[in-house]
């Protein structure tokens, strides 16, 4: 068979169908309206604080942080909604069976569904550029920061989207899939956080037992690399200040050279790990897609 690059057919179809529904236009308009409100709010409060001494434009760089966080937050809510019906919807519409009689593999179906969600994410990012630009023009942020943010948003979209597609392959109802996606996300965040806190707690307890001034940090914070938001945190710290997540970890105790290297490379390592996790979710989704059921007559 001839190997040729082709757009995933499912993604192509979903984009065409999606573009024809008015829902998406409204969603994108709503999101940008929300972002604009935030800009206006920050600028208004800023001018009040500035008072007679004139307008302090440099503090507008915090707009970047505010908008960035809001965008991540919105993305984490929107992507579960977009992907929630991706598989369950095909099942409900009884089109999944037909899809499975074609040579397109279940994994490609999952990938196509993720791809169509990412297209919406991209649209959402692109349309938000004008609003984001305010923070750059007025606040003096570099365009690299925006590019970085978009990279981060894309990654986050892939992660949340994979979980979303997986949930859609498990649950029948779209609403349940949305909720399940958010629950899984919150669970991952909570579990990594609890492990970190307990781990560091144990370490400091040992330190007091041994009368040591400092705890040896070791590998415990690495668990946070599996927290999908940790690279974003590092990214925001790095763009807004001269610090990084590594500096924060360093302050908690002594750190060997090897671990230092690892924590300094938090963003790439964490990105790779989390993308592997999303790949795992997609694989699981593919497995669920492949299981077909005989529809029973009422």
């Amino acid at each position, binding site marked *: 068979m001839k190997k040729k690059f082709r757009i995933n057919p499912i993604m192509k179809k979903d984009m065409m*169908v999606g573009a024809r529904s008015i829902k998406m236009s409204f969603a994108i308009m709503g999101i940008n309206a929300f972002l604009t409100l935030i800009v206006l709010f920050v600028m208004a409060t800023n001018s009040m604080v500035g008072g007679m001494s004139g307008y302090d434009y440099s503090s507008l760089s915090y707009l970047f942080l505010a908008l960035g966080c809001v965008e991540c937050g919105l993305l984490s809510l929107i992507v579960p909604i977009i992907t929630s019906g991706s598989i369950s919807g095909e099942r409900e519409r009884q*089109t999944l069976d037909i899809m499975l009689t074609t040579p397109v593999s279940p994994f490609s179906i999952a990938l196509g569904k993720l791809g169509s969600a990412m297209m919406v994410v991209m649209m959402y990012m692109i349309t938000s550029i004008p609003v984001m630009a305010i923070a750059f023009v007025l606040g003096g942020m570099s365009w690299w920061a925006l590019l970085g943010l978009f990279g981060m948003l894309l990654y986050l979209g892939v992660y949340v989207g994979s979980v979303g597609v997986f949930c859609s392959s498990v649950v029948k109802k779209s609403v349940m899939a949305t909720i399940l996606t958010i629950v899984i996300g919150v669970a991952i965040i909570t579990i990594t956080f609890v492990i970190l806190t307990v781990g560091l707690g144990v370490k400091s307890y040992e330190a007091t037992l041994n009368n040591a001034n400092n705890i040896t940090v070791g590998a415990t914070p690495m668990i946070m690399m599996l927290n999908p938001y940790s690279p974003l945190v590092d990214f925001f710290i790095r763009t807004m200040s001269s610090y990084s997540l590594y500096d924060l970890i360093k302050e908690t105790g002594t750190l060997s050279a090897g671990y230092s290297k690892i924590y300094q490379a938090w963003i790439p390592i964490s990105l790779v790990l989390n993308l592997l996790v999303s790949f795992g979710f997609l694989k699981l989704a593919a497995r669920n897609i492949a299981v077909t059921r*005989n529809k029973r007559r009422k």
Partner: protein
Amino acid sequence: MLEIQNLTKRYGKFLALDNLNLHIDKGEIFGFVGPNGAGKTTTMRITCGLLKATSGTVLVDGVNAITNPEDIKRKVGYVPDFFGVYDNLKVMEYMEFYGSMYGMSKEDVDEIAEGLLELVNLSDKKDVFVDTLSRGMKQRLCVARALIHNPDLLVLDEPNSGLDPRARFEMKEVLKNLGAMGKTIIISSHILPELSEMCTSIGIMEKGHLIASGKVDEIMQKSKGSQPIHMRAIMDGYDTEEDGREFLSTLLREQPNVEKVTYTEDEVLIAFNGNDAEAANLLKGLVERNVLVSNFYREKEDLESLFLEITGGAKE
């Protein structure tokens, strides 16, 4: 073409297919008949590589559907018993979408789809949104869709269910044309007469077993001759209704092949064991005796009676 050997399928403990054996030649239109739950859909889904068998083999053109589900997908086109279409998608785009799933280029799909839409009589609907099509049109569109990759075997699961007589007729025409083109087709239904008109051979399935199979004529021959005849006659010349009935009954019982005569509210029901020519002779005989026959028809062959016959029962 299609060779099913010792196919067994269990859903948990439930045995849906029990050592099924079936052989279908190339170019045949095979009718798969059986009551609800007989295992028709199960057999078809295994043949399409959608469902895993518990044991046994299914060979389509020598390719094993159970071990090579990926290869089978290029050889088989499937129209499921229940299926849906997408909103916001036009007929031609629908075809293009499924064509692209087989890795076909837009140009190739357009060319082939053109011909297929003509075949299923939907040429004038190319730019119509699929969800606005009628049920019958959707069914035909789905047949065209299943043919987009030029499969060797076409599997249709109850393509006529839920269609009105007109739509059924149109579907039948489509399938006849496909048969004429030399496609191998499997059609399931629980209505035998419908299948017997367009199929070349038939298999009757019950509870996971194939209880009879063969050429349509052979099967129909086995069952011919026991459908009752319904008749109405105008009996005005008699004093009482009773007298009229009495006369007609006697007359009928004298005729060959008549086994039993009963009266329903407004009809005479004749248990008749002859073929169609003999039934025609019965009518002729009555008319010659000046009976004013106003209505005379033979009950259609139905699955139930055929079943009972084949399995040794008798229809009352």
